[in-house]
C-alpha cells in the first residue's frame, strides 16, 4: 500500500517545498497585516475620500478570486514590456494584497469596539493620529480579534497552494510533480494533506498562548 522508500526519498524535496510555502504565506500574512491596518484605519477615517478608497480596496481584493489575482499580477508586467515578476515576488504580492483585504475587515471590527473616549483622551493629551492607532487602538483590536486573525493565517497557508500556477515549487506543486513521476497519486497527496494539517498545530498553539497571555494582562 504505502511505499516507504519513496516516501523517505521524497522528504527532502517536500522539506524544501515546505519552506517555500511557509515563506510565501507567512510573509504574505505579515505584509497583509500592515495593509489591513492601513485599510481599516482608512475606512474609519473622517475624510470621505479615504473611506471610499479603503472601501474600494476591499471590494476589489476580497471580490476577485486569489487565483485570478495571482495570474493578473504575474502577467501584468509583460503588458508594459517589462520582464515577468519573479514568481516568489508575484506570489507574496498576491497573498498580501488578498489577505490585507480580509485582515482589514477583521481589524475594523476590533477598532469599532474600542470606546471612543479612549481615542478622545489620547487626542487631548496631544498624541498624533499614527501614535493613537499604533499605541492605543491596534493592540486592543488585535487582542479582541486574535481568534479571527489566526484563522485568517491558517486560511492563507492553505490558499498558498495556488501559487504553484505561477511556477513556484511549493508543497502542492512538488507533490504533483512527484505523483506524476511515479503514479503514486494517493500516497503523495495523502502525505501532502498530512503536512498541511501538521503546520496548523504550532500555529494553533501559538495563537492560544498569545490569547492566554493577553487575557491575563487584561483580566
Amino acid at each position, binding site marked *: 500500500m504505502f511505499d516507504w522508500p519513496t516516501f523517505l526519498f521524497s522528504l527532502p524535496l517536500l522539506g524544501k517545498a515546505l519552506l517555500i510555502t511557509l515563506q510565501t504565506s507567512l510573509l504574505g500574512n505579515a505584509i497583509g497585516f500592515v495593509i489591513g491596518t492601513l485599510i481599516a484605519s482608512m475606512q474609519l477615517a473622517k475624510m470621505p475620500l479615504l473611506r471610499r478608497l479603503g472601501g474600494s480596496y476591499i471590494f476589489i481584493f476580497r471580490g476577485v478570486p486569489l487565483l485570478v489575482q495571482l495570474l493578473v499580477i504575474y502577467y501584468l508586467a509583460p503588458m508594459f514590456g517589462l520582464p515577468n515578476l519573479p514568481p516568489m515576488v508575484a506570489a507574496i504580492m498576491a497573498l498580501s494584497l488578498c489577505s490585507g483585504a480580509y485582515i482589514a475587515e477583521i481589524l475594523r471590527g476590533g477598532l469599532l469596539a474600542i470606546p471612543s*473616549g479612549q481615542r478622545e483622551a489620547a487626542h*487631548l493629551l*496631544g498624541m498624533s493620529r499614527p501614535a493613537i492607532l499604533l499605541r492605543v487602538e491596534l493592540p486592543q483590536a488585535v487582542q479582541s480579534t486574535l481568534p479571527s486573525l489566526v484563522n485568517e493565517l491558517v486560511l492563507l497557508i492553505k490558499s498558498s497552494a495556488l501559487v504553484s500556477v505561477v511556477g513556484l515549487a511549493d508543497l502542492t506543486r512538488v507533490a504533483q510533480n512527484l505523483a506524476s513521476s511515479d503514479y503514486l497519486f494517493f500516497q503523495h497527496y495523502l502525505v501532502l494533506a498530512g503536512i498541511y494539517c501538521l503546520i496548523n498545530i504550532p500555529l494553533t498553539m501559538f495563537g492560544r498562548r498569545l490569547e492566554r497571555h493577553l487575557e491575563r494582562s487584561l483580566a
Partner: protein
Amino acid sequence: MPLSLSPSTSPPAASNLEATPKGPDKASPIIHLSAVGKRFGNHQVLADINLSVHHSEVVCLIGPSGSGKSTLLRSMAFLEEYDEGEIHIEGRLLGWEIDDRGRRKHAGRTRLNQARRNLGIVFQQFNLWPHMTALGNVTEALVRVRGIKRNEAEKRAMEVLDKVGLAEKAKEYPARLSGGQQQRVAIARALAMEPKIMLFDEPTSALDPELVGEVLAVMKQLALEGMTMVVVTHEMGFAAQVADTVVFLDQGSIVTRGTPSEVFRDTQHPRLRQFLQNYLDRNAFWHTTTEQEN
C-alpha cells in the same frame, strides 16, 4: 522698527483676536468665554455663555441633566465645536482661526494642540487604556508627546501616582483597579502633563457612592495647591466646600452664579431653588426618619 498701520486698521488692541498671550498676569482670566453658543440642528444647546475663570479659581458647573453643562465643559477643550462667540485660553482663541476676510475656520492641529497644552481633562468614564498598566497610562503621553525618555517619564509618573495615592498600584492594569482608583489614575495621567487648568466632566458620576470620597479628596487637594479647575458635578457638598464660584445652568444658559453661600443659601431664584430642593429631599433620610418618630 515701528509697525506701519494702514489707515483703515482699527487700534491694535482690538484689531487682533489672537493677541499674544500675556505673561503670568494674575488679574486677567486664564479662560474667558464671551457670548458662546452652540446648536445641534434646531436645538440651542448653549446660548450666550459669558464666563471668566481666573488663576487658581475653582468653578463648579451645576444644573439638571441636559442643561448643557457637560457640553460647555467639553467646548472649553474644543471637544465640542462651539459655533458662536469666542473662547480664549490664556489669551489664545480656542479652536478657530479668523481668516483675512474675518470669517472663522478651523484652527490647524498644531494651533489647537498648543491651546490644549494647558488643559488636563478627566472624564466621567475614566477612559484609561485597558491594555496598559496604571504606570503605562501615565507614562505614554510623556514619552510620545513630550519626548521624555522612558525611565525618566516613569520616574515622573510615579511621583504623580504617589500624589493620588496609588504608587503601589502602578503595575496593575485598569481592570484590576476599583472605579475610584481608575479615576485617580486618570487624574494622574492628566496631571503628569503639567496642565495649568484641569477640567473635570462629572468625575464621580460613574462611581459607587463609597468610592466618590477618595476622588473628591484628590480634587480638593489639587484645589488647595492652587490648581485652576472647572468641574461639572452633581456633588453639591464638594461644590459648597471647594468652589470659589458656582454656576447654575438650565436649558443651555447660565441662570445664576455666585459664591457657594450665595448660590446654595441665599438664592431666591425659583428654578435654582427647585433644583436644590431635589438634592435636599434625596439626602434628607435622617431628617425624615426623626420626623416620623415624633
